């Protein structure tokens, strides 16, 4: 998964880089500007004690030139409040081959009030390492100013010339620390017009400063602090932002603040890259030979792109948005997400199937239907379903305003079955790139029965507490992702070690043998893991009693906390889990007490469990169904209650006694 289009706003670069280098000696400091001092000397409101730092001032002036370039001028002042806030004291400005940092100045004031200014040669350059699968020309100018301690102030000012690929700019005015005083000023050439759209924030009208200058003030924005919050939504799905769309005389692709405009721009950028080639056509013909059904043809092509095209990113400048030519991707058999989507489209086209690209973000909620923009980081495919075609295999289906139906498929997510959609995209929005019919679409939330775990086992319990038996675990959908990875990518030693560690969650002295994984690379079949387990001390004796946990293995624990909840809950996925265990008791023992059955339904999820005793065998059954992918914050008490019920049931014991 890689970048498609992160808007590059002014961001402090997180610590790490400077840990590896020596401290650079700095020289005499003069000339801390008055705007820094003014910001530094203001009285702060009371913040929660977890607040690491605060942005005192952030001023952006964005000046668009008639030739399509833009100059971004930024002033930024931050105060560090806690030791952990030091990471906010690394100024950074990102650039690439199509942008240039015209100037950058960094100042700081230490907690004792001493002022510092960095020289130009004290500002370094850095680019993120590829970690084996990325070449990008993104670089940053970064600095490590003095006085980066609690109470210290770090400020910087820069001017950067950009060549926007789209007549759009984004203002991100909320983050994980509070921002006190901030403004965004837009300067347009004569004859230009603009419109704004807003994400996670009410629309606010800008002040007309005259002479084509407009300003927005956004003061006292609270922090979106999600640190230590379990089941948290993505921070970018909560943080407020404004998008400015502009248009002017002579512009090739003016923007009017609609999804259609975004789609038309991207269509123009990408359309010729989706062109098929004779080699692609030949391969497509080979793959689809003998297939006449739409789904069958689309599936075999989708799986080829998903499985046979290696993920590797090469992007420079506009290459962050524009895919490589389908023919090149096919020839090298590698590419990033938009490359894979492009090749998918080209191959489907060869097979007579129309498809479109779909621009999304890997974090649910980042793409906001109210804020048309290119904010997003991922590209997938939307395969048009022939009119009147029906099949029970079609799951991830959306209907556009045109009435056309599309099967949504992500060829980059290599463990999600064709016809389905990975859980993080479910319920989110994406931009369908269909020329003048481009539009925003909400992606479907899939049936829990498409994302399942089914465990079954048959055990024998010995009088000394040892449990022996065979276990079969079948997984399907995203819940099978890691197991499929384990049995296709890792060696036998790592497979064994992983499963040893899994069963160690439930046994103190396990011995796992006969480990077998089946259907790991067959995404449309259950990923089946089976093994034999022997665990001494599984049942524990207390006086004359023997205690046995009927929920032998596997957990459905929900990681709630005891804190007051402030943000919505991301349940991550819909799913269903079934456990079905039989435990044959040792001769001479019978049941003295069984746990009570459990049956609850909260709407968003239900849980049912029972333990029965027949003959000499305990039967444990449970089923958990999670129907929603996210919940409003008000539901947290109910979720906590459900977590408690499941937790108690998982620990419940059967009391055995001698006959």
């Amino acid at each position: 998964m890689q970048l498609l289009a992160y808007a590059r706003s002014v961001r402090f670069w997180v610590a790490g880089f400077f840990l590896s280098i020596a401290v650079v000696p700095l020289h005499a400091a003069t000339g801390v500007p008055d705007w820094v001092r003014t910001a530094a000397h203001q009285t702060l409101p009371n913040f929660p004690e977890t607040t690491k730092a605060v942005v005192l001032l952030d001023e952006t002036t964005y000046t668009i030139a008639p030739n399509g370039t833009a100059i971004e001028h930024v002033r930024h002042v931050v105060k560090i409040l806690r030791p952990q806030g030091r990471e906010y004291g690394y100024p950074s400005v990102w650039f690439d081959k199509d942008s240039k940092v015209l100037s950058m100045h960094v100042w700081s004031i230490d907690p004792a009030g001493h002022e510092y200014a960095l020289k130009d040669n004290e500002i370094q350059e850095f680019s993120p390492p590829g970690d084996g699968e990325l070449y990008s020309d993104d670089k940053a100018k970064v600095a490590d100013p003095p006085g980066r301690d609690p109470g210290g102030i770090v400020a910087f000012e820069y001017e950067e010339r950009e060549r926007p690929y789209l007549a759009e700019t984004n203002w991100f005015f909320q983050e994980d620390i509070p921002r006190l005083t901030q403004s965004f000023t837009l300067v347009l050439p004569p004859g230009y017009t603009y419109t704004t759209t807003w994400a996670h924030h009410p629309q606010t009208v800008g002040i007309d400063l005259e002479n084509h200058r407009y300003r927005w003030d956004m003061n006292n924005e609270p922090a979106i602090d999600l640190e230590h919050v379990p089941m948290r939504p993505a921070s970018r799905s909560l943080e407020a932002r404004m998008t400015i769309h502009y248009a002017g005389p002579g512009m090739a692709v003016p923007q009017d603040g609609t999804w259609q405009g975004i789609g038309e721009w991207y269509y123009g950028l990408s359309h010729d890259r989706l062109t098929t080639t004779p080699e692609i056509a030949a391969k497509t013909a080979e793959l689809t030979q003998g297939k006449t059904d739409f789904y069958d043809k689309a599936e075999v092509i989708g799986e080829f792109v998903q499985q046979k095209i290696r993920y590797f990113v090469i992007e420079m400048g506009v290459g962050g948005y524009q895919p490589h030519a389908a023919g090149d991707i096919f020839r090298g058999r590698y590419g990033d997400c938009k490359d894979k989507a492009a090749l998918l489209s080209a191959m489907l086209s060869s097979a007579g199937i129309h498809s479109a690209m779909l621009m999304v973000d890997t974090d649910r909620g980042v793409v906001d239907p109210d804020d048309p923009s290119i904010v997003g980081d991922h590209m997938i495919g939307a395969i048009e379903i022939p009119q009147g075609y029906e099949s029970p295999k079609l799951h991830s289906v959306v209907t556009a305003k045109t009435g056309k139906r599309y099967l949504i498929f992500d060829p980059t997510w290599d463990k999600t079955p064709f016809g389905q959609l990975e859980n993080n995209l479910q319920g989110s929005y994406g931009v369908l790139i269909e020329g003048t019919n481009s539009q925003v679409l909400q992606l479907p939330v899939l049936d829990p029965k498409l994302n399942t775990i089914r465990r079954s086992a048959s055990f024998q319990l010995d009088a000394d507490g040892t449990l022996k038996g065979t276990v079969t675990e079948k997984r399907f959908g995203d819940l099978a992702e890691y197991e499929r990875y384990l049995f296709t990518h890792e060696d036998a030693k790592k497979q064994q070690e992983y499963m040893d560690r899994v069963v160690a969650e439930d046994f103190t002295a396990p011995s796992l043998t006969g480990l077998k994984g089946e259907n790991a690379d067959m995404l449309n079949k259950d990923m089946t893991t089976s093994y034999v387990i022997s665990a001494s001390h599984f049942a524990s004796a207390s006086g004359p009693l023997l205690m046995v946990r009927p929920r032998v293995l596997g957990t459905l624990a929900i990681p709630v906390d005891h804190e007051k909840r402030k943000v919505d809950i991301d349940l991550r996925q819909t799913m269903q889990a079934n456990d079905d265990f039989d435990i044959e008791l040792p001769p001479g023992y019978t049941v003295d007490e069984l746990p009570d059955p459990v049956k609850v339904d909260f709407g968003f999820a239900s849980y049912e469990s029972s333990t029965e005793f027949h003959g000499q065998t305990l039967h444990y059954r449970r089923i958990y169904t999670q129907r929603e992918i996210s919940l409003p914050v008000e539901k947290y008490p109910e979720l906590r209650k459900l977590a408690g019920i499941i937790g108690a049931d998982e620990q419940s014991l059967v009391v055995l006694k001698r006959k």
Partner: protein
Amino acid sequence: MMQRSSIIRWQKAIHAFSLLAVVLSSCVRAHAGDLFVKPTAEELAMTALPGYPGAAAVVLYREEITKDDMHVVQHYDRIKILTEEGKKYANVELRFSSARGLEMEASDDTMVGDIVGRTIHADGKVIPFTGKPYLKVVEKEHDVNFQGVDLQKLSFAEVKVQEKVFTLPDVEVGSIIEYRYSTRYGDHSFEAPDWYIQGDLYLKAAHYTWYPTTEELTSGETGAPINSITWFPILPADAKIVSHTTPGTGHLGRDQQVYDLVVKDVPPMPKEEYMPPIASFSYRVLYNFSEYRSVQDYWNSAGKHWSKAANNFSSVSSELTSATQGIIAGANTQDEKLRKIYAAVMALENTDFTREHGKLEDKASGEGPVNKVADVLTHKRGSSTQLTELFVAMARVAGMKAYLMLVPDRSERLFTPMWMNMQQFDDVIAIVNVDGKEQFFDPGSRYCRYGHVAWQHTDVQGIRQTDAGTGFALTLVDSYADNKTIRIANLYMNDKGEITGKIDLTFSGAPALSWRQTSLRGDEESLKHALRTHLENMLPKSLEVKVSEIKGLDDYEKPLIVSYEVKGTLGTATGKRLLMPADLFLAGSTATFPHEKRELAVYFHYPQAVQDALRVNFPEQFVTEAVPTEAKLGIPQLAVYSMSVVAAPKNFTTRRSYMFGGTLVLPKDYAELRTFYSQFESKDQESVVLKVVPASATTVPTAN
């Protein structure tokens, strides 16, 4: 697993510079097709690696040829892809760094180039690499100064870290990928090769050759003439370095010495939980140009240089003398004096936990640069090394014999004298003769107890100052009694089953130091969160935890005591019973050693003792029906465990004790260790059975 061949002396200099800076033209040119080995039918058909089921890939062949006088290293890798995971080896990142020195001779303009490669499918189809390798500048810095723990300094006008990135085409499972590239070094420097042989893939065969320069060299560090080539080998038993001379083929017709190594069937480096720090002991050969005649000669010289630099920094000044006299005023014995000095140093800010200050900050605060230990005192802050040097200097002022000792960080690496390299050391500790007896101190590990060192510095060999110069020394081993955790809980359950109560965790030694240093890296809020999470992870999730008090955080001589308030519910109810965990501190624990097989020794950080005492008071509607039987387990001379539960009419009390006296358990003893752990960890999970008293048997309170 690994065997160490006889050690031949070697020395790792940063660079050795030519007396005759001769510019030699490159003659390395890559021509795809001529350079690659033709795959055998067996290689093409290979689908798995015998003995390593599921292996992602295997290195069929690796070649590395170093030609000093051409300032080039030629690399060749042939890799067979066996699984989907193995495809990642087709993405190649070749990282290299270069530096522009303050003087031209100190520059190093390393560059990677001449990249050619290809992919061969299992059916023999060849797909040449025709793409473009991309050059990426990962870091570029100006005015860079480095100083190691051995006080060696390096300064550069500019340092660049770059990568050549490329990916091979059309790679499938079953493909063979191969590529060649060259690393070129600057004309003014010669660098002896390091052959790192063992990695994450099985290596079927490799060939390494070095053609050392025939020019006369001097050391870049000392200026002394280079008189030999040395090497530090860790090699499989059947691998040997072969050296021979080819007359008249070297520079200016001199005799060319050649070093050659062929290795076969090298397994990948093992990785296991609780493994010893063996990363620096993989199969390898590390060469150097040496000016020394023996290992001892090297350490004598390197130790002398370090000791001199350290003593220079630690030299006594009038300010230091005056400050020390003030600190030890009123103390009578050496021990009393040293405790006062230690306390004074411990009170200073350790910038390794906060942030190092630059020269400009020192100037702005009127403190000036840190040139001597007295400056550390003036600044009221310093690095771990500087604080240790200050401590030693003050001890000397106070009339005691005090020495510095370089040690490795045992969490990362171990020291071997056979490898003549000062970069093996991470930290500095102190040795002081107190009232006639030498003791170890670790003032650089802030909040370490007086007379102790951090566990990372225990039980290691290092190099120390002595009255006669320097020499090797061993640090002491901790006892389990030095590192203790005591967990006490007193809980009350009301008639609704609600639990309230107090828990105290008391940490001594290494655990206390760890928590105290956690506090140095953050603040009270972050420490409280970490402490709360620590206990939450132990307890049943049904209990809510709050840190109520932290005692002795700064008082490093005393235990650290953390008090908690807990509330919630506990235990599992059945119709007529309540099943309570006998030791709720172990409710969240899982098996430590779930794997039956083990290749490497088990390595614990330090010996330790953990003692639990819990009392759960319950209401009248319950009586104790059954408790776990008393248990005493152990491994002779190594570990002891005991647990007992005592029932009373209205409560039960659990006492648990775990003591482990060593740090290393050999693979042959793993089964015994695992059995011990399995037994006591099973015991830890047993329950106390409370029975509901029938209503007629309870005393019903009457209204007054």
